């Protein structure tokens, strides 16, 4: 055993000193660094996200019940060391002197919120002050809207039920206001200790009881697993996943981008490793053949190879993890302030992931050679057969290909993205092979038709070089193509896709919703828009309806498996009507109604809702609208971008269908800074209007997009470094063979100029072909990612494609020439010694 370790160490050290390992280790370090950096970061982001979600819930998890929360749950949570707080939400009238107003009361334990801060002001100013506590007993914090409607100020007293509370502050921001923001009346927050005195909670009262929980993620999981089977009717668990869909959507996209960039780095690093392993393997096989000659046992050699693999993988992983850690520090810096609370500390898990990845990747690369070595007999060395390959090229690359696909699936976290990537890669390899073959055939014919001469023969020799090394050229070109494709994809994704993503939430995205507009108030609301200089607004009708039948079957909540489906089916739908589809909606299936069909009982449904409720195109739904049943046929399904912050509807009908039903109207608009007084005036003159301020929410989403954009740019820049290492590895992998060839050419009388021209032609051909294949593949992939996965428009970028082709056809030959130049200037006699 000692002999094996000693041999492995000395061999590895010698290979390192001789430079045969450098590119391989570099590729491995970069791969591990890419994976661990993203893993470190996404893990911290994921924890940050649950905290962010926690801010929306007021804790990490909430049990919601329509009856007092079961005492057992509280004891269970406290037993696990989780923090708990109880809250109670219900609508009630709030009275101030002669005025009264329906408000959404929320009574909370003194330690609420468990996550995040409440923000309050004394005067209703634009900026609030953060506090990490609930109102004191005897105190009420009210939203500006309630203060304005009741004309109360801090210090006044209000009656809530049979109890009197002093207004302690104006509630500026309550991040824990999850759920459907449109159903909320203005908020009044009070201490739960005052609840009994109000005498508002009686038998049969509609109260939303909540047990808010916070603590360690594993403990929360444990709690969820224990409690979930015990949940009774009317009880459910809410986590970050159920928090605001707008934020979830933005964060999901950000995570997809991050996963994509990590995947890109992994693919590139694997390609670099495959290429870089070629000189390493060649030297190792030679060493092993000589060792075999001097009497080494096969088992010894396999053990030496395994130990070498372990040594290289382990040390590369250590450096990679270190680099990854430093890189993620930068990421965390860029993403700083993304979440209201600090990013959590890094954990040990990514370190283990890094080591595992390094070992897997290197083993996948070395494994076929170990297999090959098994068959290596000592006589090979006498016959100079060490380079013959007893196994086919496909078999040689198979484990690496499987490992690469495994990593892609693991990193992508999305079957569609992973499959698309794998398919593109496989297709590209095939296209590359056909392209090389076709090119050499055509170019060969072309050059043979030209008059003979030194120049022609040098160029022709260069082109034929592709054919002489068809296998190697193809591998090299696949490497170049993949590298270029990924770099182009990065340019496209980071440029076009990210710009589109940011554009989906422009500076003037709506920051206010106004609901409850009555038909006779439409005109005054429109006038307000005009006077405040608010353009591009639409006022949408809304008719409340309840789903009663689906394809003649009575809708029964028990038939739905998911909580989301149950909730969607249970709650009232806001049906709207429209002649044309909203511009931020996208038709997924079916067709929109024509001008002749405006009175037809058709229905357009949001795709996600239809999926949750199991509704398909052509199904009939019966809604109860103000006590009258109305049968509608689903004629199309739409995809809705909820994060545009515009008013959007799950269900839309043609305009004439709902004409005779009582409707209220809704609008969303962007209120420019400094126009608050005008809005207040509107609310004052139309007290029934409810204005919902989504500025804070909008700001949160915008911050996420901006911070994540810089973080992604940084990750992409890192991928760029990995991409360049592929190009370098591809050059190094074939350098030895080229040096031999160049030397022989010069021995036979070729001038340095002729050799230069031959190689520049060969590499320019490789660069150009690779760039063409890469351009097509990158655009196809970018199209797929933007349209199918991210749901944002795609535009073909011709300039980029041309630029890449130009750069590839000049820079690749230049880099190759630079790496070979040293050898071309050495006298052939000297080179012959070393080959």
């Amino acid at each position, binding site marked *: 055993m000692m*002999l094996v370790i*000693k*041999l492995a160490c*000395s061999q590895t050290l*010698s*290979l390192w*000193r*001789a430079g*045969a390992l450098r590119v391989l280790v570099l590729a491995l370090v970069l791969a591990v660094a890419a994976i661990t950096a993203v893993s470190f970061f996404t893990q911290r982001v994921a924890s940050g996200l649950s905290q962010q979600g926690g801010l929306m819930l007021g804790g990490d998890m909430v049990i919601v019940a329509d009856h007092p929360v079961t005492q057992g749950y509280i004891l269970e949570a406290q037993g696990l060391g989780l923090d708990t707080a109880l809250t109670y939400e219900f609508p009630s009238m709030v009275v101030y002197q002669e005025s009264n107003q329906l408000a959404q009361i929320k009574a909370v334990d003194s330690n609420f919120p468990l996550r995040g801060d409440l923000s309050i002001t004394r005067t209703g100013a634009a900026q609030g002050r953060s506090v990490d506590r609930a109102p004191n007993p005897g105190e009420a914090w009210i939203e500006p809207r309630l203060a304005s409607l009741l004309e109360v100020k801090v210090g006044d007293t209000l009656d809530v039920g049979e109890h009197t509370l002093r207004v302690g502050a104006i509630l500026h921001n309550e991040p824990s206001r999850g759920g459907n923001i449109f159903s909320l009346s203005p908020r009044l927050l009070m201490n739960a200790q005052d609840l009994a005195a109000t005498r508002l909670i009686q038998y049969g009262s509609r109260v939303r009881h909540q047990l808010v929980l916070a603590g360690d993620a594993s403990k929360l999981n444990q709690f969820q697993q224990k409690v979930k089977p015990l949940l009774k009717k009317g009880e459910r668990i809410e986590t970050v996943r159920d928090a605001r869909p707008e934020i979830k959507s933005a964060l999901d996209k950000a995570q997809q981008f991050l996963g994509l960039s990590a995947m890109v780095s992994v693919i590139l690093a694997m390609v670099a490793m495959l290429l870089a392993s070629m000189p390493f393997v060649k*030297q190792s096989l*030679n*060493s092993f053949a*000589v*060792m*075999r*000659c*001097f*009497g*080494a*046992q*096969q*088992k*010894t050699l396999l053990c030496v190879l395994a130990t070498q693999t372990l040594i290289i993988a382990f040390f590369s992983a250590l450096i990679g993890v270190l680099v990854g850690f430093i890189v993620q520090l930068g990421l965390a810096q860029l993403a700083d302030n993304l979440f209201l609370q600090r990013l959590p500390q890094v954990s040990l898990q990514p370190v283990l992931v890094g080591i595992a990845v390094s070992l897997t990747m290197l083993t996948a690369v070395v494994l076929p050679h170990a297999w090959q070595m098994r068959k290596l*007999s*000592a*006589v090979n*060395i*006498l016959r*100079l057969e060490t380079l013959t390959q007893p196994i086919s090229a496909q078999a040689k690359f198979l484990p690496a290909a499987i490992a690469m696909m495994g990593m892609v699936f693991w990193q992508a976290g999305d079957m569609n993205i992973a499959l698309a990537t794998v398919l593109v890669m496989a297709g590209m390899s095939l296209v590359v092979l056909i392209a090389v073959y076709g090119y050499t055939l055509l170019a060969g014919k072309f050059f043979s038709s030209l008059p003979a001469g030194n120049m022609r023969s040098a160029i022709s020799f260069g082109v034929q070089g592709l054919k002489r090394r068809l296998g190697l050229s193809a591998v090299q070109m696949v490497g170049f193509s993949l590298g270029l494709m990924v770099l182009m994809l990065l340019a496209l994704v980071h440029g076009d896709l990210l710009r589109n993503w940011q554009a989906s939430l422009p500076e003037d995205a709506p920051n206010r919703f106004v609901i409850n507009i009555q038909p006779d108030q439409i005109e005054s609301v429109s006038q307000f828009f005009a006077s405040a200089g608010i353009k591009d607004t639409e006022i949408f009708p809304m008719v409340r309806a309840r789903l009663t039948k689906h394809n003649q079957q009575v809708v029964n909540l028990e038939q739905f498996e998911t909580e989301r489906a149950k909730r969607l089916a249970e709650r009232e739908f806001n049906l709207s009507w429209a002649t044309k589809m909203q511009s931020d909606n996208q038709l997924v299936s079916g067709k929109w109604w024509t001008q002749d069909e405006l009175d037809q009982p058709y229905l357009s449904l949001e795709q996600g809702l239809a999926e949750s409720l199991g509704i398909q195109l052509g199904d009939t739904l019966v809604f109860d609208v103000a006590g009258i049943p109305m049968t509608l046929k689903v004629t199309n399904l739409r995809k809705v971008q909820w994060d545009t912050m515009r008013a959007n509807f799950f269900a839309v009908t043609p305009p004439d269908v709902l004409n005779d039903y009582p409707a209220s109207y809704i609008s969303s608009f962007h209120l420019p800074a400094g126009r608050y007084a005008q809005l207040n005036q509107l609310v004052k003159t139309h007290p029934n209007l409810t204005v919902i301020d989504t500025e804070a929410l909008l700001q949160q989403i915008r911050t996420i997009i901006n911070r994540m954009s810089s973080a992604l740019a940084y990750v992409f820049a890192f991928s760029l470094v990995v991409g360049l290492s592929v190009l370098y590895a591809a050059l190094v992998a074939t350098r030895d063979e080229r040096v031999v060839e160049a030397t022989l050419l010069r021995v036979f009388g070729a001038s340095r100029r002729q050799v230069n021209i031959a190689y520049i032609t060969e590499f320019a051909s490789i660069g150009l072909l690779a760039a063409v294949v890469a351009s097509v593949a990158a655009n196809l992939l970018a199209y797929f990612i933007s349209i199918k996965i991210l749901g944002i428009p795609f535009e073909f970028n011709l300039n980029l494609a041309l630029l890449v082709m130009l750069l590839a056809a000049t820079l690749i030959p230049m880099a190759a020439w630079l790496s070979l130049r040293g050898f071309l200037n050495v006298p052939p006699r000297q080179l012959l*010694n*070393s080959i």
Partner: protein
Amino acid sequence: MIQAQDLYYEINHHHNQLRILHGLNLSITSGEQVAIIGSSGSGKSTLLSLLAGLDVPTRGNVLVNGQLFSSLNEDGRAAVRAKYMGFVFQSFQLLPALTALENVMLPLQLNGTANARALSMAALNKVGLRERTSHYPKQLSGGEQQRVAIARAFATAPAILFADEPTGNLDHATGQMIIDLLFGLNKEAGTTLVLVTHDVELANRCERKLQLSQGVLTEVGQA
């Protein structure tokens, strides 16, 4: 020391059976210097690889110290090689990633010899390369590379040394120097030498010459 009994070696080349060795018999005693001569393609190197257990005959046996050698498996033969044999090749077969010293140390390390470094330094010293121990093969001339290969071969103090055209890649003067070195060290160590060459002058320096022609070995007579 080494015996070949009724040795046949055939290869399949484009579906044609090509017979390289025809029922060849040979006996080499301990300490003998034997040259195997013959024209290119006569099968000299094949014979050497069979005697050294680098390859197995189609038929017949090779015995080393009375022990049946050719029927052992690859690992069994490797163990015998490690114990008794050293090699010098025409194309040197130094590992490009190892320095001169590391190349010499390699077989010693494989044998688990304790003082591999000291023995290798001594061996390099003997071939006059004391100052070049940290150089890589490509930094050495052809003659120097072959001297490293000779140092490597003698470092393990083998009972039998196989040399396959040791001067084949060298100019006359350098070749002469290498041969002097090889025979000098061989004499000093009392090693059995099996030398394959087409160079008659070189063969004449051996005690015994064997001519390989048409797959048959004939004794040429004492030098």
